[in-house]
C-alpha cells in the first residue's frame, strides 16, 4: 500500500481548492451581472418585468441549490445535450447567486428615501438618470456589507457541486479520503481551507460595515 504524507494530502487539497476559488469567482461575478439585470426588472416600471423577475427570484430562493444543480446537470441531458459538470455547476451557481443578490440589492435600493426619487424627478431626471446618479451611488454604499457577507454563502455553496462530479475542494476531499483512509485528517483540512477562504470575507464585511457607517448616515 502506498503511504501518503500529510504534505501529499494538503497539496492535493490545495490544488483542488483553486477550483473552489475559481468557481466562487465565476458564480459571484456572473451572478452579480444577472442579479443587476434582475434588479432593474424588479424595480423598473414595466409590470410584466416586475412579475417575471419576482417569479424568478422566488423560484430560485424557494428550491434547494442541490436540486438546481441536478436539474442543470441532468435536465439538459434529457434533450440529448451533454453537459459537462463544470458547466452545469457554473450555470446553476450563477443563477442561484443572481436570485439572492437581486433581492439583497432591491432591499438596498428601497432603503433610499422616497424623497430622493421625488426630488430628482422634480429636477427633470429620467428613471435611468435617477438610478445612475442619485439612487445607486447611495444604495451601493448600503449594499457593500451584505453583498460581501453573501459571498461567504457562495463559497460554501460551491461544495454542493461535488455531488454532480465537479472536482473542487469537497470532491477532492472524498477522493483523497478514499485513497488514504484518513477521513478525519482530510476533512479537517478541507474544513480549515474553507474557513481560511470564508473568514476573511466575513471579517471584511464587518469592517466595511463599520467603515461605511451604514446604519448612521444621513438620518
Amino acid at each position, binding site marked *: 500500500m502506498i503511504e501518503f504524507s500529510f504534505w501529499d494530502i494538503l497539496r492535493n487539497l490545495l490544488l483542488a481548492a483553486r477550483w473552489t476559488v475559481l468557481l466562487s469567482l465565476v458564480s459571484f461575478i456572473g451572478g452579480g451581472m444577472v442579479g443587476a439585470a434582475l434588479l432593474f426588472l424588479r424595480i423598473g416600471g414595466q409590470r410584466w418585468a416586475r412579475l417575471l423577475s419576482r417569479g424568478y427570484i422566488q423560484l430560485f430562493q424557494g428550491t434547494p441549490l442541490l436540486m438546481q444543480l441536478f436539474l442543470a446537470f441532468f435536465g439538459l441531458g434529457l434533450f440529448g445535450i451533454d453537459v459537462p459538470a463544470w458547466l452545469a455547476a457554473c450555470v446553476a451557481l450563477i443563477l442561484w447567486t443572481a436570485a439572492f443578490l437581486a433581492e439583497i440589492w432591491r432591499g438596498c435600493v428601497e432603503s433610499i428615501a422616497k424623497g430622493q426619487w421625488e*426630488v430628482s*424627478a422634480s429636477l427633470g431626471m429620467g428613471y435611468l*438618470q435617477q438610478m445612475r446618479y*442619485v439612487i445607486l451611488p*447611495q444604495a451601493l454604499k448600503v449594499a457593500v456589507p451584505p453583498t460581501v457577507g453573501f459571498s461567504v454563502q457562495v463559497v460554501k455553496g460551491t461544495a454542493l457541486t461535488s455531488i454532480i462530479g465537479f472536482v473542487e475542494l469537497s470532491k477532492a476531499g472524498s477522493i483523497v479520503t478514499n485513497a488514504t483512509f484518513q477521513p478525519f485528517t482530510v476533512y479537517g483540512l478541507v474544513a480549515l481551507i474553507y474557513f481560511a477562504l470564508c473568514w476573511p470575507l466575513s471579517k471584511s464585511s464587518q469592517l466595511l460595515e463599520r467603515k461605511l457607517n451604514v446604519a448612521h448616515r444621513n438620518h
Partner: protein
Amino acid sequence: MSLIAITEVKKRFGDNEVLKGISIDVAPGEVVAIIGKSGSGKSTLLRCINGLETIDEGSIVVAGAQFLPDEVHLKALRLKVGMIFQQFNLFPHLTAGGNVMLSQMVVKKTPKRDAEAVARKMLDRVGLAHKFDALPDELSGGQQQRVAIARALAMQPIALLCDEITSALDPELVAEVLAVVKELAAEGMTLVMVTHEMRFARDVCSRVVFMHQGRVHEIGAPEDVFANPRTPELRQFLGVQ
C-alpha cells in the same frame, strides 16, 4: 395670460377624493400662499403641478404646456417648474456644489465648468458661497434648505413650488430660509407655496388660497383673507372669533 392655469382638477386616492375640482390661475410674478389644515389637499395640489402625482380630471397648463403623464411632457413641465420640499432632500453623497451641479449636467447636459459657475452663483444668491464643498451632513437644516433652493434655481425654472419648506426647521432657522424666498419674490419669481407661516403669507404674498376639504374655500388678497375671513372654517383656522 396666466403662467399656471389649474382648471377643475380632481384627484382621488382610491375612494378618497382629495382634490374636488380646484381652479386657480397664477399670473407671472405672483406669489401665492396656499394655507389650510393638514389633509385639506394643499400638498397634493402642489405635487400635481409638478407631476409627482397624476390628476384624474381637469387640466394643468404651465406656460402653455399641458400636463400629460408621459416622460417627455413631464420632463418639459419639470424644467419650467422647480420644487422645494419640506425634507430638503439633498443628495447626501454629493457636496453642496455637487448638489446644485448634478441636474444641470445630467438633464441639461451643461458642461461641468459652466455648471460649476452657475452653482457658485446660485449658492452665493442664497448666501452659501463659502459652503460649496460642504457635505449635506455638515450643514444646518436652514443651510440645507437654502442649498435645495439654489439647486432648484440652477435649472432656471419660471416658477417655484415650495411645499412647507420651513416646517422641518428649528424656529431660529426659519427666518434665514424665508429671507431667501422673500428676495426671490422681490426679484419677480413666480412662487406657489404651501405654508404655515401666516405672517410671511401676509407680508410677502400677493394672494392667499385657503383650502378646505379638497376645495378652494376662500381666495383673495392677504389683507382681505386675513382681516375679513368670510367663512367660519377660515375663521376657525386662523383662530379668530
